[in-house]
């Protein structure tokens, strides 16, 4: 019970001081909006095109929304030492880090629905398998957040976290089958695609939106879950090793 009071208040504080601040809310809206407009306009408004593009746009929105937040909520707080106060709290380290990442996960889920809402006005979304789409969005938000966490704890400056995450983010747009099918990638890049978690997230989204996917949903989601556990554990290990000297 006591631990949950701590968990809830860490989440609430991050929400108030970071996620719900006008710059972040507008960033969270404008960024997906920009992606969405760019792709939808370029596609030439064919209805089928929008359905083909939607999964990729949703995935990008989540990826960029979540990963950029961890640089602030974790790296910045480490730098100004307020993170030490959290480390001194009598709650388990795992719960502490879950509290620090929950805000970003929710933020990512929120970001995901910006393109969806736009698409409502442009296309018929009744054919989307929501019972698959929603869990996929959640899992992608989780895995992107933990990827962001992994990056945020591997560096010590906020700008490094931003630069380093771009190093991951931009290649992922092309490698994870968001807009171009993985089969069309050069053979030597394919193994790389399968090593990136977003590949499996995008696969589920494609399947949920227009029925075209490579792997069973259960397998995709299980792999995403495995990536989450792996990235979270690696981040915790890194914090213990690098921050608690």
């Amino acid at each position, binding site marked *: *019970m*006591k*631990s949950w*009071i*701590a968990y*809830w*208040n*860490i989440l609430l*504080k991050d929400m108030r*001081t970071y996620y719900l601040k006008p710059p972040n809310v507008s960033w969270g809206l404008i960024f997906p909006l920009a992606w969405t407009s760019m792709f939808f306009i370029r596609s030439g408004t064919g209805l089928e095109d929008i359905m083909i593009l939607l999964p990729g746009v949703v995935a990008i929105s989540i990826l960029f929304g979540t990963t950029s937040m961890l640089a602030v909520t974790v790296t910045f707080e480490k730098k*100004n*030492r*307020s*993170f*030490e*106060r*959290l*480390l*001194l*709290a*009598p*709650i388990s*380290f795992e719960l502490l880090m879950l509290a620090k990442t929950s805000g970003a996960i929710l933020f990512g889920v929120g970001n995901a629905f910006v393109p969806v809402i736009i698409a409502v006005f442009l296309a018929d979304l009744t054919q989307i398998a929501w019972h698959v789409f929603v869990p996929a969005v959640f899992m992608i938000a989780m895995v992107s957040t933990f990827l962001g966490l992994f990056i945020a704890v591997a560096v010590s400056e906020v700008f490094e976290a931003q630069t380093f995450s771009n190093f991951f983010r931009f290649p992922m747009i092309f490698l994870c089958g968001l807009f171009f099918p993985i089969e069309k990638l050069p053979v030597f890049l394919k193994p790389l695609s399968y090593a990136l978690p977003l590949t499996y997230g995008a696969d589920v989204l494609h399947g949920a939106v227009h029925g075209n996917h490579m792997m069973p949903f259960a397998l995709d989601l299980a792999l995403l879950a495995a990536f989450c556990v792996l990235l979270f554990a690696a981040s915790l290990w890194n914090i213990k090793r690098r921050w*608690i*000297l």
Partner: protein
Amino acid sequence: MTESICVENLTKNFEKVAAVDGISFRVRQGELFGFLGPNGAGKTTTINILTGLARSDSGTIRIGGIDCTGNPRAAQHLVGVVPDESNLYPELTGFDNLCFCAALYGMGRTKRKARAHELLDTFDLTPAADRKFAGYSKGMKRKLTIAAGIIHRPPILFLDEPTTGIDVASARQLRHLVSDLNRSGTTIFLTTHYIEEAERLCNRIAFIVSGRIVRNDTVEHLIQPIKAKHIMRIACATMPNDIHAKLTHAFSELIFTITNEGFIRVESEKPVHVGPLVRFLEDNGAEVTEARRMRPSLEDVFVNITGIAADAMRKEKEKRGGGQ
């Protein structure tokens, strides 16, 4: 349980620096324990290890009867920590900072609000309760950081240089608050490089120099051997280089020390006769400007034991903004 903190053979190396070099000490329940040493002595490192913010290379730690050697977080519910630099949230108000810290210890909403108000009142911060922490003065920041450290009424409190770098009035107020806190039953581990502060506040003091404890005793015991001594400080505008040797030769019953600041410190079992001493100095080319009797204090003990001139410590103080 009568021992709040029990440390055996603690060591910590940073690359080539032995920051903490095999220290052992015990802090009894209810004690105000002073950890006194110059900058870089290893005080903060010791606190970090004891509170789980740093790992030791070897040694054992028990806090509040709990063995924390392998698991430094085991006793975190028992301790409050006030770091040397504030680690509160600059963008939150004073009140919100305290409420947030209380929530970290699992306090319910009504309880935390009541406690936050109570502490803001104790620390005279009520008028600033709704202002952002970033806009606080240094003294106010330190006070709120201490309030945050004791928000959950910890039985054991770590205070890292609480009066360094803040104004005189705030420093005095803080010392009173620390005393009160200790009187009401909190065991306090306080680090400082102000000798007078340690003497005034603490029951027991450990002198730490270069990661080693060179002496650990009650203030009474530390002062005892020097209490009956007579100390005099002579200021000279000019002083020949070999004056120390000459003085020692001429006045064999007195002990002389030349401080970095150009004072001659005279220590004696009996009252010092100033006349002959000043005449001797003038005859030997020194220009005496002042001779003053000093009250024997912990400073003298510290100088005797550590060999570190008290002004070396005082210089640190001036450099870092003073706190008397």
